[in-house]
């Protein structure tokens, strides 16, 4: 299987074992023995073993949702078996217990961050150890008398501590709104259940109950997320975190500079120079092409006019790229092939503009290979299951 990395388990063999185990399990369930209906999902997860990026993430998420869903199935069956009425409040309460969290939305959003997607909270978590490590030194400095350089340093440290405090406040405000959406979601769920409590509109499977809850929860979340309070809280959560990050970067820059290490600002300066040079090269190439083509500048209406920037396009070799698009995760390079300048393949032009454009490009092209795609940026975190 394409997704699998390393030694793949014997899935066929495991499938048979799994099925046998499940048959025994199902028989047990029918006989009313006390077993956890979620066990087979966990068995599935174990049997699937470590998988590649996409499959690993998908199976992890499936297992998480499957356990929730089967747990609900079991609880509902058990209560119904005991003769308890499954009226809307009971069902909503049962579902809430099954979610196992007061603020389901926080969990849901944290789950989004698990694989291939990293949110602001995770970014804050990454800053925290560095911050905590330095906090002791800052606190020590703040307790010293403040004169001259020491005073400036103290002001910076105080600002850092304030910035961290603002991050915490902003995150708390954001979470409070998520909690509000969670509560409202449960209210909507119950309301929707009430709507279904009439013949012809009743839910006929636990899966339908799950879907109804998703609809209710999404509705509540959308309402809160589109509110002015949320917009403000979301903005402040991001802004506060960026203020802290910037201050920490400044501090690291300062320390790196003291040790003669390259700093972010130096790198920024270098990148600016590269960008400016690149733009100048474009402009010069364009001017050269205009001169060689013996034509005036081209306006946006199609007549000659000056242009701010000319393309730095290079002719490519006629490489037939693999039909399988390499993704950044695959980290593959585009195939090289014999060079054949673009200009030689240009078709006959019937218009003066096109002829002129072709002449212009013929002066610009040089045969180069396609740059390899970016190397894998960093593979997705390993599967939670496999970890």
């Amino acid at each position, binding site marked *: 299987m394409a997704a699998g990395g390393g030694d*793949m388990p014997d899935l066929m063999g495991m499938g048979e074992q799994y099925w046998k185990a499940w048959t025994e399990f199902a028989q047990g369930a029918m006989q009313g023995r006390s077993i956890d209906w979620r066990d087979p999902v966990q068995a599935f997860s174990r049997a699937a073993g470590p998988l590649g990026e996409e499959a690993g993430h998908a199976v992890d998420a499936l297992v998480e949702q499957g356990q929730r869903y089967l747990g609900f199935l079991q609880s509902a069956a058990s209560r119904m078996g005991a003769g308890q009425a499954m009226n809307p409040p009971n069902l909503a309460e049962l579902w809430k217990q099954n979610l196992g969290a007061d603020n389901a939305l926080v969990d849901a*959003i944290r789950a989004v961050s698990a694989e291939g997607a990293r949110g602001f909270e995770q970014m804050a978590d990454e800053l925290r150890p560095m911050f905590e490590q330095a906090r002791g030194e800052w606190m020590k400095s703040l307790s010293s008398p403040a004169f001259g350089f020491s005073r400036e340093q103290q002001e910076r440290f105080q600002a850092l501590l304030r910035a961290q405090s603002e991050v915490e406040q902003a995150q708390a405000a954001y979470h409070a709104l998520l909690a509000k959406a969670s509560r409202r979601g449960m209210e909507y769920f119950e309301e929707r259940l009430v709507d279904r409590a009439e013949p012809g509109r009743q839910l006929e499977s636990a899966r339908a109950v799950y879907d109804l809850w998703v609809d209710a929860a999404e509705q509540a979340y959308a309402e809160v997320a589109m509110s002015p309070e949320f*917009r403000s809280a979301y903005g402040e959560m991001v802004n506060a975190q960026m203020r802290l990050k910037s201050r920490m970067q400044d501090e690291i820059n300062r320390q790196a500079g003291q040790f003669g290490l390259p700093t972010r600002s130096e790198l920024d300066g270098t990148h600016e120079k590269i960008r400016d040079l690149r733009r100048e090269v474009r402009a010069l190439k364009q001017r050269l092409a205009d001169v060689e083509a013996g034509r005036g500048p081209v306006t*946006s209406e199609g007549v000659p006019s000056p242009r701010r920037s000319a393309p730095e396009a290079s002719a490519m070799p006629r490489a037939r790229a693999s039909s399988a698009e390499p993704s950044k995760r695959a980290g593959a390079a585009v195939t090289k092939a014999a060079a054949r300048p673009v200009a030689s393949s240009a078709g006959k032009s019937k218009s003066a503009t096109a002829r002129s454009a072709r002449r212009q490009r013929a002066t610009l092209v040089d045969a180069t290979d396609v740059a390899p795609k970016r190397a894998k940026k960093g593979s997705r975190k390993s599967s939670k299951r496999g970890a």
Partner: protein
Amino acid sequence: MMFGPIKITPEKLIEEALRVQQKLGAGLKSLGEVGNYDVGCTPKEAIAKDGKAVLYRFLGESKPTEKTPLLISYALVNRPYMVDLQEDRSIVRSLLAAGHDVYLVDWGYPDASDRLMDLDDYLNGVLDGFVDQLRARCGVDAVNLLGVCQGGAFALCYAAMHPHKVRNLITMVTPVDFQTPDNMLSHWCRDLDVDQFVDAVGNVPGDLMNWCYLTLKPYRLNGQKYLGLIDMLDSPAELTNFLRMERWIFDSPDQAGAAFRQFIRDFYQHNKLIEGGLRIGDHEVDLGRVTMPVLNIFAEQDHLVPPAASRALRDVVGSKDYTEVSFKGGHIGIYVSGRAQREVPPAIDQWLKKRRS
């Protein structure tokens, strides 16, 4: 239960659990049979490059019958192989079969050295260079430009800045009014201090962009979707398709800081594309100058680019030949659903062929 919201017996619940377990059991076998889920199915050749951007030409089974090249400008976010995901889900393949000469701008994966690339570099540098390459290569004055999502906003800007180089313009799921009341992304970024944000992060991580998109509908996109995967577990083919989509969803390039800053500030926060006052490099972007024929395709259930955000184009575009196509589906379905394969490429093909003289 006779009354109440559910009409289920404990036995039915057990049956339901059994069905799930049966699917899980079959899933183990299917996982072993999942085929190759590489992405991008049509052979293509690289024609030109500029920095990390590459201009590709797709190679159809027969020679194109249409002279005017069709250039696809995709978004900077996510990867462009979505338009050519797999054999039975490829807008590109259908357009090639209809005789079009199809090209694609692949913006690549920006790294730290690209963080100062702004929209002027992308549009008046890279895209304009590629358009000139195509004009020269194909011997035409102007190309047909197909912009997708953010790439559609870019195509509009480009067409406004260089109208003589665009013969026909097609926009797909393209935001034009960035502040419609139902636009959650827009709502969230309105109070963002984008200067501070970009100064702090440099390039905007693709993983962070993903997180933002997935948190638009967290229960549906990170929960319900995967529970639904259970239904596909007994079909290796469906499982393969699912995993291919997953690959695309999580394959998100980082965003060049300067371009992101400008896009958030001018498009989302100040809505300049529709309100006016947008400048890219030395050019003023006035959609009134988009006078070539325009085909605007939007998706009715699009949660990323609400239909109203796309429809706004009709009131501001300068073209007298403006057509709208409303697609019954979402932002992703418009590329890859069965309905999309039946409806979208033929709509583009027929619209273009009517305007080729």
